[in-house]
């Protein structure tokens, strides 16, 4: 139990659910319009080399997570500073996602409920899950992700009645620049957020294959996101998709089968909670592991509770309102995340390769 190592398939399942996390309620590719499918595919291609980098870093240092790798590579001082950066990223991402879900529940279902209540519930469950460890989360995800995908598939099938293929044309109307900008957006949310998995996963020498985990996990997540986004586009059309806060939710409200199966969006949205729960748990776990490594506490489970509580309360004031949330997500997030998702991993990778090369030379000579 203490090894904190999980089998490949489970790690992949966790990653897929992580990717589905807030995209199932927010949608992706905010300004892409009718090219969102193209954008997603290109973003998937763009993130692939970085996934290879993330996997490679983990493969070079078996049984270590990113915080320990940073310590090993850059020494205790610089390593700690970099760890602090990732702790901050994980923490802020967790708060942002939790705020997404809280706004969702608030606006869609319960406008009168004080904002603490959904946050409290989500936070407590996440604290509990993180305390149980990544093993439990892995096993849980392995089952729940199938369940989630089945429900999504069923709902998409039900939506096909209202789909209109014309909504996908004309292709690339807004021009190449807009597509590139949207690709950058999708790249950082949610694709490259998988960088956090470097901090949470530990690779067992024989049993784990980090490349499989990253690529399979992201591939399946990509497919699901693609299906959902295309469905949103087909049903709602480009304009509506851009202008509502929660496109997938609105798309589901349209389903009306025989006057009986209607207004099922609440069922659907509660299921989305599953994936959001995984995402927030991973962020929380990453932050706790980082703090544990930073301060040498000998075990991250002990401080899950206060970090979780701090996360919950940060969620309350991280944005003033939903408009600020949307604005940040559109305009700022990609740039904010860029150093964590691209710059630092590349630097770590180069340092790791250099060190591995040196070790190889040393052992040969």
């Amino acid at each position, binding site marked *: 139990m203490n090894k904190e190592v999980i089998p490949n398939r489970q790690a992949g399942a966790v990653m897929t659910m992580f990717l589905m996390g807030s995209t199932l309620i927010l949608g992706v590719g905010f300004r892409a319009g009718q090219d969102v499918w193209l954008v997603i595919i290109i973003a998937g291609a763009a993130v692939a080399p970085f996934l290879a980098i993330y996997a490679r870093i983990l493969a070079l240092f078996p049984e270590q997570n990113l915080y320990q790798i940073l310590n090993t590579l850059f020494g205790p001082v610089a390593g700690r500073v970099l760890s602090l950066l990732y702790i901050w990223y994980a923490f*802020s991402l967790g708060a*942002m996602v939790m705020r997404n879900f809280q706004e969702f529940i608030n606006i869609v279902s319960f406008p009168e409920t*004080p904002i*603490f209540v959904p946050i*409290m519930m989500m936070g*407590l469950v996440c604290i509990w899950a993180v305390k149980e460890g990544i093993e439990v989360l892995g096993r849980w995800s392995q089952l729940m992700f199938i369940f989630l995908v089945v429900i999504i598939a069923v709902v998409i099938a039900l939506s096909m009645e209202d789909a209109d293929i014309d909504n996908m044309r004309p292709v690339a109307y807004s021009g190449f620049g807009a597509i590139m900008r949207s690709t950058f957006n999708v790249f950082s949310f949610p694709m490259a957020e998988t960088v956090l998995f470097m901090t949470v996963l530990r690779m067992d020498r024989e049993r784990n294959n980090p490349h499989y985990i990253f690529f399979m996990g992201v591939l399946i997540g990509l497919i699901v996101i693609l299906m959902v986004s295309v469905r949103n586009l087909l049903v709602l059309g480009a304009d509506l998709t851009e202008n509502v806060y929660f496109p997938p939710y609105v798309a589901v409200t349209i389903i009306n089968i025989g006057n009986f199966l209607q207004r099922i969006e609440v069922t659907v949205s509660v299921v989305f909670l599953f994936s959001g729960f995984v995402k927030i748990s991973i962020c929380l776990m990453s932050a706790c592991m980082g*703090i544990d490594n930073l*301060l*040498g*506490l*000998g*075990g991250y489970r*002990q*401080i899950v*509770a*206060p*970090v979780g*509580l*701090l996360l*919950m*309360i*940060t969620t*309350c*004031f*991280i*944005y*003033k309102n939903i408009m600020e949330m949307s*604005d*940040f997500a*559109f*305009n*700022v997030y990609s*740039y*904010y995340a860029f150093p964590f998702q691209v710059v630092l991993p590349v630097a770590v990778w180069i340092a790791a390769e250099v060190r591995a090369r040196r070790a190889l030379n040393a052992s040969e000579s």
Partner: protein
Amino acid sequence: MFLFCTLVYAFFVFTDVVPLVQNKKWKVLAVYGVIFITAYVFTVLTELGVQLPSPLTPIGDLVASIVGSTG
């Protein structure tokens, strides 16, 4: 609502702090205490209606200044 939040915090004190004290893990307890009290203070402030500054605002401003105009 305020009472409920305090109850939740108290629950965590009982389940987490007591074993920590029993096992004499002072360093962990110190870190725990700091984070815990920070969170509690924030909670109380938010309950009282004080609008705490968001840490993302300076980041947003920084990015805006680097990238130029938004959008």
